[in-house]
């Protein structure tokens, strides 16, 4: 269902097995999150369900350190 819905193909049967394991772990995480939310939110299969947390971070996210220097404002005239 996941592979057809999100148009996924894998290079080898080994890779497919590995992705299935990740998928199962992710579904378990999603169920636990949903339980913690006590009915206020639904978590489950998304197009990111075959990615590990590290892969998800690397592909979609980018760190924004809170302690980074913040600019005061734009200068009044353009360079």
């Amino acid at each position, binding site marked *: 269902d996941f592979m057809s819905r999100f148009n996924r193909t894998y290079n080898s049967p080994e890779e497919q097995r590995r992705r299935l394991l990740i998928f199962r772990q992710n579904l378990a995480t999603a169920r636990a999150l949903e339980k*913690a*939310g006590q009915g206020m*939110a639904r*978590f489950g299969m998304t197009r*990111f*369900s075959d990615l590990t947390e590290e892969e998800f971070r690397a592909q979609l996210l980018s760190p*924004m350190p809170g302690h980074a220097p913040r600019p005061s404002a734009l200068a009044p005239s*353009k360079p």
Partner: protein
Amino acid sequence: APPSCDWRKAGAVTPAKDQGQCGSCWAFAAVANIESLWFIRHQELYNLSVQQVLDCSRLQVACEGAFPWVAFTVAWMYGLTPEEEYPYTACQNMCEERHRAVAHVQAFQILSSDEKRLAAHIAAQGPVTVGINAKLLQFYKEGIITKNMACNCDPREMNHAVLLVGYGLEKKTPYWIVKNSWGPEWGEEGSFRIYRGSNACGIASLPVTATV
């Protein structure tokens, strides 16, 4: 602040775009902020070019992330072009300066992290770009990410930029309405809702907005 606010209902928010496999959320969130503010001020809703921001950012690797004010600086220097004239490719290319600009930025400001003041600012002025720890969003489908769930994401670890487009209250749970950049198929038509009032997942840690 009024009890609720949703700039989508006012037609001030373009449909969610998809950043693909490029860490360009900072550009999407900042451009979405400019799109909405430009509509609120000029009653013209443009899909503006995120690609122009990536290409003209002067960053070494724009797909590895940056802060939203980098995008505001690009918009301030060049003005922003419509998306259809400078389409998104999910990778950084050379800056093309020949395109016409339809929206301009005068300045930007970093806002207070106080969520009541932030809500008042959004209701009065328009959507605001924020950082967030996006850990929980990998499996999000719909509903409100509650305070309990937010215990699983460290508010100090911001790794994604999004746009606060409004707020509300459901079953006594206050929430923010947040526009994401993972396409309209993801979440609630490209958006998600998260608890408002406890800096859930760092949602109020770094609010920043342009002035148009």
